[in-house]
């Protein structure tokens, strides 16, 4: 069977059989898992870390680490929660490392020029959100990313971040309030 045929076969397989094949050493099956989860994992890393090179690094490491530890995964549990937990732990470790080895953040790039006014306003808003997210403490940023990018329930977020569900709800609520405050400040500065 050629490589293309092999990957097309894996494309129609369900998650459990892909994981079973991966456990048996079929790296092509793991490749299919990577293609199904790569966007979700990268989004999580971007949201948690607010640094694209680090997010790329950690996304890659997540898939390698998950493959190496696949024998520890219990198939009756949700795979997404397990792999998100790995990504979340790796992000936390990277943030600890960054506290000791900080990098100078690049200014947020604003594109526009000839775009219609609505698009510019939208991009402006998104730039404010990006800056606001970068200023949010990690404890607020992490659950907000999992909730609004990864579309996870409070229960799943609580399991991934190893925190009580009530704490997650409070952190998301406070994070959004802080974000609104930050955006408000930016708007005042822009108008002044």
């Amino acid at each position, binding site marked *: 069977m050629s490589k293309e045929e092999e990957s097309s076969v894996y494309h129609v397989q369900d998650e459990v059989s892909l994981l079973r094949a991966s456990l*048996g050493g079929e790296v*092509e099956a*793991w490749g299919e898992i990577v293609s199904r989860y790569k966007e979700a994992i*990268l989004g999580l890393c971007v949201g948690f870390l607010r640094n*694209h090179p680090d997010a790329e690094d950690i996304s890659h490491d997540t898939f390698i680490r998950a493959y190496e530890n696949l024998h520890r995964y219990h198939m*009756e549990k949700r795979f997404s929660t397990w792999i998100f937990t790995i990504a979340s732990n790796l992000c936390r470790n990277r943030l600890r490392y960054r506290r000791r080895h900080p990098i100078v953040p690049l200014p947020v790039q604003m594109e526009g020029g000839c775009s219609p006014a609505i698009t510019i306003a939208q991009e402006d808003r998104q730039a404010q959100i990006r800056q606001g997210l970068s200023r949010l403490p990690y404890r607020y940023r992490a659950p907000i990313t999992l909730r609004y990018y990864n579309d996870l329930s409070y229960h799943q977020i609580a399991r991934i971040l190893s925190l009580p569900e009530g704490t997650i709800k409070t952190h998301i609520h406070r994070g959004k309030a802080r974000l609104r405050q930050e955006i408000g400040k930016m708007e005042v500065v822009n108008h002044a």
Partner: protein
Amino acid sequence: MHKDDLEKLLGDTLQQEVSEERHYLDGLEKKIVAELTGRLPRKGWLHALTRLFAQMQSSHRRQLAVIGITAVIFLFLGIFVSERLPLFRGLFSAYDEQHTTTITANSDGGQLLFVMPAPGAQTVAVVGSFNNWKPILLTDEDEDGIWLTNLSLTPGRYEYAFVVDGRWWGQDPLADEYVRSFGGYNSVRYVGHTGDNI
């Protein structure tokens, strides 16, 4: 800003940031597959044990680990000794005979036919322990909804399941027995004279 606007904007912003990384995402699976393929074989249990001990900081956990490992060593030692003592050997062999005779072969070895009725299915594959759970496609040449494949297998016990349009189908009516695995079922077939020769 309205509450729902903020939530939507948060989702859109992160979505936008990920789509800016399209160049990275496009080749990620190939890169990871290449990296994993080129790796050395996994290190053995001794290496894992050494790492486990190295990571243990608290003496309490270390004590527990030592007790556990000692228990395992004694268990293996017990089995080893019991097999060499005539009294126990007789006991075990009687047990083995009683249980192995219940397993009978239903195939002569060599060719084994896998049949799956699935009218309207797009793809049907069989996955199993005979080739490390790698899918083998079944064919339905006369388009009557009965999918077939014939495999050459050496004598032994094989766990397998069908995958019909991506869904796991673990209970083949032609199987000798079923086993529960990872919250679902797998079928088992014995090939050869007796099923216990693997």
